[in-house]
């Protein structure tokens, strides 16, 4: 397998926290921007850890941790402008955060109280997409729509779309068709692949034998590999590609080279397929530590700043925990409420029949006889 060369990797901040330059990608961030990125990274990690804890406590049915991918998500998410639109997988909690989606809303899906959780149109952040690859085509379609709007308005700029997907997803027909449509229509979309080296238990080499970013050239657009644990590089690269897209430059692909530090989800047991020691090398490349070192080194932040961020993170986590526990179970009528936007006879019939059925239990003498409860069954017979 050709794993690529270091020279192919865009890096602006080394794992040791040293700023390095790159001929094609520059950064234009203020000191407070740097601190804000550090804060984002820390908060996002804290949200993620809290959600994992909530799953362990039985408050969530499942959680897909982003541990290790904070820089890829914060760096790209913060590169988006308000008019841009993001299409996530199920792991883009950091992007959601950057878009301003309330983290509590993310828990709804994993708690099982909703199949969505937020209004996608509010923050231009689509619903999580679980069927691998599907969202890449939605992203392209949305970008085509932006382009049409632009043409109709005779504007010289459009918004841009970012489509997130994983290394595993790169094998799906839909993702490759998305490349084709994007190229054919020169749609303003950035394909952002978080190559975290794993698709559940399958290592990268099951999906490809050359670096993924090289896929782009064969479809007729630019691809670039960026150090996915380097928030500065990710931010710079994504900003540039989004700007190109907005200006009519068409699609491009970014491969953020990173590593999934945790299990695939809380249901997964990585000990069955990878060695704990495999993580060591990547621990040294931690996306947050290097920004911390950088801030220290450059004297851009002092201990009080770090303490404050930690306190914010803790407060956020507490709020999340409390909010999660308070998330109510949905009303059974939700099953029928939004199947269609307009009435549908069969759904309406089932809806009222089910309401009557539920009511029959309320009406029964023994109020313990609730459907779905074993007690109900016994009382009944």
């Amino acid at each position, binding site marked *: 397998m050709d794993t690529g060369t270091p020279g192919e990797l865009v890096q602006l901040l080394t794992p040791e926290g040293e700023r390095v330059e790159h001929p094609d990608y520059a950064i234009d961030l203020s000191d407070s921007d740097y601190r804000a990125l550090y804060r984002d990274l820390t908060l996002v990690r804290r949200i993620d850890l809290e959600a994992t804890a909530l799953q362990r406590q039985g408050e969530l049915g499942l959680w897909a941790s982003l541990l290790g991918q904070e820089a890829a998500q914060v760096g790209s998410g913060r590169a988006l402008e308000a008019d841009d639109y993001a299409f996530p997988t199920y792991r883009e909690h950091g992007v959601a955060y950057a878009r301003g989606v309330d983290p509590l809303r993310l828990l709804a899906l994993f708690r099982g109280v909703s199949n969505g959780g937020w209004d996608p149109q509010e923050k231009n952040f689509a619903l999580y997409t679980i069927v691998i690859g599907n969202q890449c*085509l939605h992203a*392209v*379609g949305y*970008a*085509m729509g932006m382009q049409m709007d632009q043409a109709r308005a005779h504007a010289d700029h459009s918004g841009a779309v970012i489509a997130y997907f994983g290394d595993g997803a790169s094998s799906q027909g839909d993702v490759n068709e998305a490349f084709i449509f994007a190229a*054919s229509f020169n749609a303003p979309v950035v394909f952002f692949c978080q190559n975290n080296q794993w698709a559940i238990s399958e290592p990268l080499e099951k999906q490809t034998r050359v670096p993924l970013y090289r896929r782009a050239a064969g479809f007729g657009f630019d691809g670039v590999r960026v150090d996915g644990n380097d928030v500065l590089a990710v931010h710079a690269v994504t900003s540039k590609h989004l700007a190109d897209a907005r200006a009519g430059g068409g699609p491009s692909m970014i491969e953020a080279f990173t590593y999934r530090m945790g299990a695939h989800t809380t249901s997964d047991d990585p000990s069955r397929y990878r060695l704990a020691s495999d993580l060591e090398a990547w621990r040294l490349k931690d996306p947050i530590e290097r920004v911390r070192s950088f801030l220290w080194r450059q004297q851009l932040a002092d201990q009080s700043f770090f303490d404050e961020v930690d306190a914010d993170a803790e407060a956020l986590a507490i709020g999340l925990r409390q909010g999660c526990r308070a998330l109510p179970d949905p009303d059974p009528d939700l099953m029928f409420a939004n199947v269609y936007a*307009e009435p549908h*006879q069969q759904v309406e019939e089932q809806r009222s029949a089910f309401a009557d059925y539920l009511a029959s239990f309320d009406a029964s003498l023994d109020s313990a006889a609730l459907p779905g409860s074993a007690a109900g069954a016994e009382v009944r017979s």
Partner: protein
Amino acid sequence: MTETVTLARALNLGLRRAMEEDDKVVLLGEDIGKLGGVFRVTDTLQKDFGEHRVIDTPLAESGILGAAVGLAMRGYRPVVEIQFDGFVYPAFDQIVSQVAKMHARSQGDLLMPMVIRIPYGGGIGAVEHHSESPEAYFAHTAGLRVVSPSNPVDGYWMVQQAIRCNDPVVFFEPKRRYWEKAELDVAATPDPLFAGRVARPGRDVTLVCYGPMVRTCLDAAAAVAADGVEVEVIDLRTLSPLDIDLVCGSVLRTGRLVVAHEASTFLGMGAELAAMVTERCFYTLEAPVLRVGGFHSPYPPSRLEEHYLPDLDRVLDAVDRSLAY
């Protein structure tokens, strides 16, 4: 005011009017531009509305449907053409997992006002994959609506109504009827989209059909009228929702029901109609609901299709059997 049009032409006129009335309506598909679609249903539309509204796409059905989802999210009303029934399956995932579910999973925040046009059914002597009747797959899928016009007038109105509907509508066009003609009055008031229609009244037996089989069933009804047998023919028009009240109203009068469609009867629309009608008209039915349809076999080579497709004789055979109870 009226014009004699084929079904293909009526659909073309309906699409044109929908595009005129709402500039968010965009058409996507393979060969729908200059060629006007292999059945010419989109003929001249690209010329008149431009390449941004009549979009020839790369050859990938999942891509088309997935892009349509994104366009709908951006506020467009995509009308997708699938070239032939047998080519909708590459898009099945996007249709079932995304198009059908988006409104529900977003708790109503997102609309998917999309029309998926599919020329369907056999009878045109085509090679394999060009004569399928996959409507049951879609009708079984919650979140989708499924309709099928049987004639030019319905084609004209229903395609416009489907485009105006805020839900995704799978729109099955009976391809062997594309060239049948009728008088179209574009100033008329159409029937509602999600309702069936009594195509021919009768007292003795109810014959339910849709799409390409309506013509066959009307012919069958006419053929036995001379014998004094009155067949009431119902053109369902909509498969999901199903206008079950219309069907049951008829069965309560006739006591007998035959359902005919080209699709395989095994888990076809006839099965659902049999189950629903029997439940609702149990004490009225004088015969079990009988089904006439395709066999449980892949669509055969075209030299056999006259045997595969339920024809007038097979329909009447079922009518006879029903009456014999």
